[in-house]
């Protein structure tokens, strides 16, 4: 790129939207989100000039190799235009000729995003070797990312499924798989490591979800495996050889079991309803995996749960039947206002991350009607969704950019269940950032405040191999 000091003069106006990356055309954002820096798709332009005007006032101007928006000015502009539009004018210079593209809008939602940021795991999208895994926290109001736990802290360990309680990281659980593994249960500032495998349960807990009251935490106990395709289209088929659901009482370190969640079928991906009275989960019939991998199809169910007694209901309801749909419904996530249930639907599998047809669906819990979220899905994988604390925003992973690296997208939802066009998690100079990032994002969740996590204490505890053995109630 040559010098980028002059301003647009005699720009040729064209009636085409600018090809920008990420695609922020007509997206809806919350007030206070980090600046939506963007690049021009054509890397051969010399220069880009961007003016953003607020419908309710305010203006921001940037000029350079990419739209590098000033953080303070941007925050002020979005605050000033809550519930209104930002109009973006993009001019590009190539071969000494300026072109002015058709203006586009960015909508500033009236729904606030109150949470501090996101937590997520970053992992190279390899095969059997995890590589340089890390759990990170990202301030959504700036570009600041902080490592919470990485391979440097715990070399050779595979850690995953970090789960706060309804975005509150004061209650947090995560799991370290394999030899020397364990389950972290963090409440307030106390970090305890448990062995959640017992003689009566087949494995340690994973895929966790907190009961809203914070006493209980549900886990799936399973063994996940991968097989690899010989053809060029799909890479990996992930499946579980068994899976049950347990609930841990974090006050007594006891496991609560239900025969309905310990069947020959594979119960997986538990999630409590916001009132704590229901436990949602997916279940599939046992198949001879990997040979019958195409037959793995999950139904979406729920079972009652009584917080006082720690007892489960005596029967399970089926919300989405695999027999009826012929498809597999997984990763149920009820919104915290109790209005919606978002889940992933794919042709097969109880681990949808590698299913290219995996899409997000939304169920209205009042009518039990579910619909495909056309407005947020793509032709590639969508999965790992979670709600913001006010249930008007959700984050999910999508491999839409290149088919391999999962990235984080955010979208809003209104009171009628209409979702807005999602936007890629903003980064400063996004083409450079994402181009040089060789990690996939997974298990994203909102966090209402910065996570307080004592990594040195975690190191000491993990290395000490001291685990609190849970008991069966």
């Amino acid at each position, binding site marked *: 790129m040559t010098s980028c000091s002059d301003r647009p003069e005699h720009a040729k106006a064209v009636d085409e939207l600018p090809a920008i990356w990420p695609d922020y055309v007509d997206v809806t954002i919350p007030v206070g989100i980090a600046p939506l820096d963007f690049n021009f798709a054509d890397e051969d332009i010399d220069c880009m000039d961007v003016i953003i005007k607020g419908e309710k006032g305010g203006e921001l101007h940037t000029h350079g190799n990419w739209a590098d928006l000033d953080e303070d000015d941007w925050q002020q502009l979005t605050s000033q235009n809550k519930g209104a539009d930002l109009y973006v004018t993009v001019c590009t210079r190539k071969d000494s000729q300026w072109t002015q593209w058709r203006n586009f809008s960015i909508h500033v939602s009236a729904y606030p995003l109150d949470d501090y940021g996101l937590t997520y795991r970053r992992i190279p999208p390899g095969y059997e*070797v995890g590589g340089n895994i890390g759990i990170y926290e990202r301030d959504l109001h700036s570009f600041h990312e902080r490592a919470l736990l990485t391979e440097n802290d715990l070399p050779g360990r595979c850690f995953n499924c970090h789960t706060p309680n309804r975005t509150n990281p004061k209650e947090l659980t995560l799991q370290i798989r394999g030899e020397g593994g364990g389950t972290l249960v963090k409440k307030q500032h106390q970090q305890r490591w448990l062995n959640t495998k017992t003689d009566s349960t087949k494995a340690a807990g994973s895929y966790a979800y907190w009961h809203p009251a914070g006493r209980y935490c549900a886990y799936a106990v399973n063994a996940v495996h991968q097989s*690899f395709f010989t053809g*060029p289209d799909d890479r990996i088929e992930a499946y579980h050889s068994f899976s049950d659901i347990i609930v841990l009482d974090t006050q007594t370190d006891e496991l609560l079991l239900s025969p309905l969640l310990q069947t020959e079928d594979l119960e997986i991906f538990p999630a409590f309803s916001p009132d704590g009275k229901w436990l949602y989960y997916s279940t599939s019939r046992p198949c001879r995996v990997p040979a019958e*991998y195409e037959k793995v199809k999950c139904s979406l169910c729920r079972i009652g749960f009584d917080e006082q007694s720690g007892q489960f209901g005596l029967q399970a309801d089926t919300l989405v039947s695999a027999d009826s749909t012929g498809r597999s419904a997984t990763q149920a996530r009820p919104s915290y206002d109790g209005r919606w249930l978002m889940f992933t639907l794919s042709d097969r599998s109880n681990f949808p991350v590698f299913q290219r047809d995996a899409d997000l669906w939304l169920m209205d819990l009042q009518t039990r009607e579910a619909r495909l979220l056309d407005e947020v899905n793509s032709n590639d994988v969508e999965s790992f969704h979670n709600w913001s604390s006010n249930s008007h925003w959700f984050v999910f992973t999508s491999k839409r950019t*290149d088919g391999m690296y999962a990235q984080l997208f955010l979208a809003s939802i209104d009171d009628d269940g209409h979702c807005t066009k999602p936007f890629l998690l903003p980064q400063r100079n996004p083409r450079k950032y994402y181009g040089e990032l*060789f990690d996939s994002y997974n298990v994203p969740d909102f966090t209402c405040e910065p996570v307080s996590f004592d990594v040195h204490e975690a190191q000491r505890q993990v290395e000490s191999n001291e685990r609190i053995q849970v008991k069966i109630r």
Partner: protein
Amino acid sequence: MSTNRSIVSTNRSVAKCRNVCLSVLMGIGVFLFWWLWHPEALSFQEQNQLFLWTGNYLAERLSTSGGLADWLGEFIVQFFYVEWLGALLMALLFVLMYWLSVKAIFSPPYRVGLGVGLLFPLFFLWLMGDENVLVALPVAFTLVLAAVALMRRVRKVWWLPIAVALWWAVGMSWTTYYRIPQHGPDFSGWNGDKWELLKQDYLIRHERWDNIIERAKMHEVQTPFWSNSVNLALAMKGQLADKMFDYWQSGEDALLMPMVRDNVSNLPTAEAFWRLGMVNEALRYMSDIQESILNARKSGRFEQRIVECMLVNGKYRVAYKHIQLLKKSLFYASWAEDAERYLTGQRSPLIAPLTAKRALRFKQNFLFNYPEIDKMLSILFQENTQNKMALEYFLGQLLLKGDAQTFMQALPLAQQHGGYRVMPMVYQDAVSCMQSRSVPDTPYGRYIKRKMGGR
């Protein structure tokens, strides 16, 4: 007085001359050591990193204490791609270390220092017999010597700033200097079969198949890695069907190994998968080998193969991302530009080889299952009967498995598609073994005896 001054001056000149001579001799010795004796060590270091010529890469390294030594070490190692250049740089580094050790520790006329100073380079040369000791370590030691030598020349008031700069440049963490976190060198020197295996890998990398076969006759290392390596070389030279069992075979994993989670063991298998046309398997193995580099570095060699696999599979968007990475290196940039031209439909030297590879790969889509590797090789061959390597690996796998029935059923395929004027020796041997009542003392017979637990 003038006589004394003259003697001191003469002593210094003699010492300087001796110092220069020792340095030159040591430099030549070190150069020859790396270039002729252990080029595989250079290759191994080089293939476990990918030095990028970007400000970010530098900034990322310098952001931690010890980062300068780390960055300088990687800077040097990138030149190992050209062996003689790598050997030359190592020679210069060791000569510098020698000079600085003399200056830092001893005083003129350095009578003792000249001899003792040699011990440091020799120690590091020996220490690097552990392949996971990084070049950053002798670099860091050299920086320490430079700092000490500098401290001897400046006033004490400068010592603290120099010490702080040294701490930042060299750091206190061993992880900068050893590829495996929380581990240290094994002090085993250059002995052992490990280096023979790394030599095999180095020869595979440079497709020096004859050298592999020659070395195999002299030095047998009874591991699946060695068998994979030798069998691949035999296949590439069209000798597998004749001579496979003339060499030690590790068992059913002698042609293709199951996945092992480290950055070495599966290299011959990954290379064999690629040449067979099992593109997804080559991609998977290479990806996992790269992720097994425990100090979380990328690899130019592995990235290149990963990109090739992605291009064959038509995964252009993600291939583009990896190509951009390689373009930031010195020695892979040119290849990456060829790959980008291929990607964008321009003339590229990669068109022919990648098109050929595309013709070899599986046409059916199914799940890879290592215990059924023979069946997969059979499918691979039957989908493209021009793939003679797949045919020979298929039949070879049946023999390794001892599956006489399937081998006899498949033998007509060798006659029909193998293009052999006479039945290859291995197959003749196998047929005679299968038809005789007792196991004969032939190469395949001996393998079968060993497989059955006999002597």
